[in-house]
């Protein structure tokens, strides 16, 4: 089969050997734990085969936490290496691998699953649906994403990591300059995960178009649902570009074609072009749901309807168009001439307009509101000024002529961290603190939450603010070290110290999850924040069928108005009808396994083995085609039983609007 086993396990480096041992020990611990506590059956029935959007969402979020840990470790290693001039902690090759895996993991395996996880948990509830349109497809999406993520993650101990940057530009990423198998991981793992994302996009478009509760017209949808909808559309528009680009990359690397090579008529710039045709929309794919989260959080804790709802909708729809026509700003320095660069400069500056509109909408929502400083709201408040720094430096970079100076420096690195961390990470934290009780039936500790918040935001600014100035002084990105004479040392040191504060903040978050699981008060009120949208109308944690009776929507902020009218939880038992639910299926998990195995063989260029494994994929498709399981019905008695348990909980039927 052509596999060279001695190439597979990367050895030698103490850091790597340490990680290998840690991984093996963790796996052993998990297996022993599951067996000891007899949890295998539970794991299979409740999680691995589930098609429940809430559980799938939770699995996405859990993966996001894990991947944040991995990506964050990479970030810390880089910060440690550059803390002092001419350090010998990581060598050049190792640094290359680490910024590559850091970038890929943070964007594709941390930001995406966190957001898709929240979308999964919240959107069906917000529109009053019982699940997404295609529940089993949804499970397949998750498992393909997970399979791709795991395949990518083993690269650093099995065969070597990709090392050509998260952008994997050709010709460097091609076979001539990167002959090892590391970059195969990039091409194949991202392909598998990308398939999952594409299906998520389709699933949510259909869900939002077809499954809204009666009365909920498009313009009565909560803002998070709107942003999810537009995000899904951008996913469907942009991900196929990446799919094709990765496929061509795979052909180039595995089968000797010449799409992107320097020789034989290939075009290396075609890769950069296709990558950013996907890559820029991808930025909006991660930022739009985050904007939706902030909108919900700000409206709830300002106790007001979102200001300028219509202008908000118009601006996100505008972004769906504009985000497709700005991609060249990532490679002005390729110099496609003044006409091209000017065009893309202008579109890039234009896209700042709808974003600016939103910022003002949030500010006006807060104006004269009775603001409650919960942890979720703190993240939203901190987001505004931090994100504005990212946005303003973005407009600086948008000017093609000026970009020739900033390009490839740490100024750029600081800029996109100021966009991605306040824009995505703060949003995810806000969303987690806000929706946690909906997911688990208990709150995250607010006091620990505030420690988490302050450590993280301060650490973030101390880490990345110096990088703007380092960049302006000429420090290039992706360089593993610098000389003492450069004068960069003090700022690099400050930045490294900041990253430790940041990491402590994240540790407090993990501790908060642990603490709350053990000690937080159970049986929280189903609407603990006195919120405005339908997800708060049902139990916490949500019963598997979501709503005993599908609510009727009359206006925006439907639940808020229901509370005002005092019609909240008066459920006539005669209204209850039996509910149709989808059955669990082990097929998505099976598909993840065969995709993972096929991918693994492809990475090692074991073509025959890969072809054999791929038969498993086809078998899965065939089984699915002949699957006539239409789900099952939940009986009226069971629903009554379930509803009685939570509607009697303290204050269950009270209305809480002042």
């Amino acid at each position, binding site marked *: 089969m052509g596999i060279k086993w001695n190439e597979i396990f990367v050895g030698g480096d103490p850091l790597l050997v340490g990680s290998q041992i840690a991984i093996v020990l963790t796996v052993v611990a998990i297996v022993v734990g599951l067996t000891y506590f007899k949890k295998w059956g539970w794991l299979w029935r409740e999680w691995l085969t589930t098609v429940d959007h809430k559980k799938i969402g939770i699995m996405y979020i859990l993966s996001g936490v894990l991947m944040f840990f991995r990506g964050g470790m990479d970030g810390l290693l880089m910060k440690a290496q550059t803390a002092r001039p001419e350090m010998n902690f990581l060598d050049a090759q190792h640094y290359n691998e680490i910024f590559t895996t850091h970038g890929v993991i943070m964007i594709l395996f941390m930001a995406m699953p966190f957001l898709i996880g929240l979308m999964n948990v919240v959107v069906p509830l917000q529109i009053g649906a019982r699940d997404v349109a295609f529940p089993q497809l949804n499970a397949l999406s998750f498992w393909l994403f997970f399979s791709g993520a795991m395949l990518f993650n083993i690269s650093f101990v099995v065969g070597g990591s990709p090392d050509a940057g998260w952008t994997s530009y050709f010709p460097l990423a091609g076979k001539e300059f990167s002959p090892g198998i590391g970059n195969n991981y990039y091409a194949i793992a991202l392909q598998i995960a990308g398939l999952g994302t594409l299906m998520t996009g389709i699933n949510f478009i259909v869900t939002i*178009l077809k499954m809204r509760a009666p009365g909920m017209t498009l313009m009565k949808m909560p803002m998070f649902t709107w942003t999810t909808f537009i995000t899904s559309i951008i996913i469907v528009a942009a991900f196929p570009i990446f799919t094709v680009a990765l496929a061509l990359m795979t052909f180039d690397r595995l089968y000797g074609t010449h799409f992107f090579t320097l020789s034989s008529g290939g075009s290396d710039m075609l890769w950069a072009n296709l990558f950013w045709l996907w890559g820029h929309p991808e930025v909006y794919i991660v930022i739009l749901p985050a904007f939706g989260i902030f909108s919900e959080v700000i409206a709830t804790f300002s106790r007001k309807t979102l200001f300028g709802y219509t202008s908000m909708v118009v601006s996100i729809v505008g972004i*769906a168009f504009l985000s497709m*026509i700005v*991609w*060249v700003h990532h490679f002005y320095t*390729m110099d496609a*001439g003044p006409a091209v*660069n000017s065009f893309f400069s202008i579109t890039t500056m234009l896209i700042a307009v709808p974003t600016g509109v939103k910022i003002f909408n949030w500010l006006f929502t807060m104006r004269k509101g009775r603001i409650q400083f919960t942890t979720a709201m703190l993240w939203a408040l901190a987001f505004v000024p931090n994100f504005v720094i990212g946005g303003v430096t973005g407009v600086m970079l948008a000017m093609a002529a000026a970009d020739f100076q900033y390009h490839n420096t740490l100024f750029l690195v600081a800029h996109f961290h100021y966009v991605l961390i306040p824009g995505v990470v703060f949003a995810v934290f806000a969303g987690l603190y806000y929706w946690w009780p909906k997911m688990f039936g208990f709150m995250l500790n607010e006091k620990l939450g505030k420690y988490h918040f302050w450590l993280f935001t301060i650490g973030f600014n101390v880490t990345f603010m110096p990088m703007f100035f380092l960049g302006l002084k000429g420090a290039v990105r992706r360089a593993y070290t610098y000389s003492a004479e450069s004068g960069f040392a003090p700022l690099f040191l400050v930045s490294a110290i900041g990253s430790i504060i940041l990491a402590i903040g994240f540790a407090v978050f993990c501790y908060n999850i642990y603490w709350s699981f053990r000690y937080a008060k159970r049986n929280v009120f189903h609407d603990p924040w006195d919120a405005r949208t339908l997800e708060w109308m049902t139990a916490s944690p949500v019963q598997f069928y979501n709503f005993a009776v599908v609510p009727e929507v009359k206006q925006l902020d439907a639940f808020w108005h229901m509370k005002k009218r005092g019609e909240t939880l008066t459920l006539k038992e005669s209204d209850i009808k039996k509910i149709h639910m989808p059955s669990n299926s082990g097929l998505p998990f099976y598909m993840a396994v065969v995709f993972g195995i096929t991918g693994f063989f492809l990475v090692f260029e074991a073509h025959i083995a890969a072809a054999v494994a791929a038969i498993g994929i086809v078998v899965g498709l065939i089984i699915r085609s002949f699957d006539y399981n239409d789900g099952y019905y939940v009986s009226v008695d069971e629903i009554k039983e379930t509803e009685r348990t939570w509607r009697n909980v303290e204050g269950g039927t009270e209305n809480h609007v002042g």
Partner: protein
Amino acid sequence: MEHKSKYPVSHVVGFLFSLVLTFVAVFVALKMNVSYTIVMWIIGSLAVLQAGLQLFMFMHVTEGEDGKTNVINMAYAAFVAIVIVAGSIWVLTSGHAAH
């Protein structure tokens, strides 16, 4: 839900036609002895043809009850396709990138 196990004729036909069109394109590009421009025009037309075919055979454009959504969808898809194809050609054939 009922499932009439009707044989999916249009899918099979669409699939076979797609295969044929793809192989014709491969043949034109690799085996036919005509100028580069002509090859480009032929395989470009075949691609458009195949996209149209799939719209009818796989995507059921004619069957949906929701006409407005369909129109918006297709307009956006056309916009995206034009941006990708025309945009890439423009970017990659101007300025330094062309040389």
